[in-house]
């Protein structure tokens, strides 16, 4: 697409009466994997939610995938996948039923749903298991398969490695690299700097609701 996937200029967002974002400036280009780094309460999760159209912009200008978040906050949502601390799955449904449901929200074909399941390795034995019986890593992969089936162009991931064993973390990193190769852009908020840092093409520091200017090493 023309221009940055995310472009935030002096963005202020308020949660209740608390200014969670206090003048954020950030531009993310197509195909990047950006790591948001910062202490708890710095505003990383709010920043991801704002980019997903869940938190309103109080001041400043914000554009995501060409949509102005002040006027088209709901329109951007169909193109964005936000994976937070929870997976957004239905625990009583099987893996295949979950991926099919989320795919159906964007009219994905059976072939697209099957391809998403194959890509995340949840297509064989796992397909007919209820999500309730999956391990944390398997459930995370299922959630990512749902994002793929939904054709999300911007992946916003909040602590995606949390609760995963080493093998599942490797699989997740590989999946994110593949997603970028397939045309997605990824923004990750993580405390696991070694793991997420090796994955990222750029690191952005978020402190007290603001994005810090890049140091020489981050540029």
């Amino acid at each position, binding site marked *: 697409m023309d221009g940055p996937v995310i472009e935030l200029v002096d963005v202020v967002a308020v949660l209740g009466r608390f200014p969670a974002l206090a003048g954020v400036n950030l531009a993310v280009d197509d195909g990047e994997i950006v790591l948001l780094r910062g202490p708890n309460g710095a505003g990383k999760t709010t920043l991801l939610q704002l980019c*997903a*159209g*869940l938190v309103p912009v109080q001041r400043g200008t914000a554009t995501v995938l060409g949509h102005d978040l002040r006027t088209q906050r*709901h*329109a951007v*949502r*169909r193109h*964005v*996948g*936000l994976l*937070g*601390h*929870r*997976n*957004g*799955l*239905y*625990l*009583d*449904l099987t893996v295949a*039923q979950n991926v099919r*449901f*989320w795919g*159906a*929200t*964007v009219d994905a074909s059976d072939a697209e749903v099957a391809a998403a399941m194959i890509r995340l390795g949840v297509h064989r034995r796992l397909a007919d298991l*209820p*999500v309730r019986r999956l391990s944390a890593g398997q459930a995370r992969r299922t959630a990512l398969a*749902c994002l793929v089936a*939904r054709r999300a162009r911007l992946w916003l991931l909040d602590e995606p490695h949390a609760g995963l064993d080493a093998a599942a973390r490797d699989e997740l990193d590989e999946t994110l690299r593949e997603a970028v190769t397939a045309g997605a852009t990824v923004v990750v908020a993580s405390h696991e700097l070694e793991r997420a840092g090796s994955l990222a093409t750029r690191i952005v520091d978020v402190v007290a609701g603001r994005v810090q200017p890049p140091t020489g090493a981050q540029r």
Partner: protein
Amino acid sequence: MRSGDAVTTARTALLVAGKDLRIEWASRVAVNQVLPFSIIVMVMFAFALDRLPGVPGLEDTILETVAPGLVWLATLFSLLILVQRSFGVEADDGALDALRVAGVEPAALFWGKTLALVAQLAVLELLLLLTALVLYGTSVRPSGVLLLVVTWIAATFGLAAVGTLYGGLAVGTRGRETLLPLLVLPVVAPVLIGATRAVEAALGTGGTELADGWPWLGVVGVFAVAFGAGGTLAFGPLIDE
């Protein structure tokens, strides 16, 4: 709303309803827990109200007289559990947030969840009515069948719409399990009263005329339409903020 938008909304609503019913089919919560609960409520009513000694004319007929109200009361209690369950599956793993992020239209979500509740409530009410026939000695007069069926449909839609609307309101709050009955029960009082009077007329309880039931059905119908329209408009802001 343009016709293309309406088709998309209807298709998404059916998708959500199908998903909710599939979850119930897989978990069997409605069959294994809600249905036995509602029948136990009916049996407990029977124990509590089987006789009113000293009340002339009501010693042996009290259950038959109050059966329509008891059926709707048992339905209301079951509605609360079904609504808790309907939004519990959305909250368990953050699926409601995922639906919002996926851009699923709130009106479609409202109607999808309402339709799934309608399907479950309709079956439940039918079984409760059969229970009343057996347990309370109630009988249906042939001329009242139409009124009974239309009341059944209108009241079920009204209850499901209110349940979904307030379920959406309560889902993001602390203590939603206790908040939901506080919100729902006062609001559905018109349905309880209207549906009870209409069913009394349909059954001929206490010598009620059939014609007396139609105005009460009107009350239930207006209620169902009002909450259907209100839910379509208000559900988005309710779950979004």
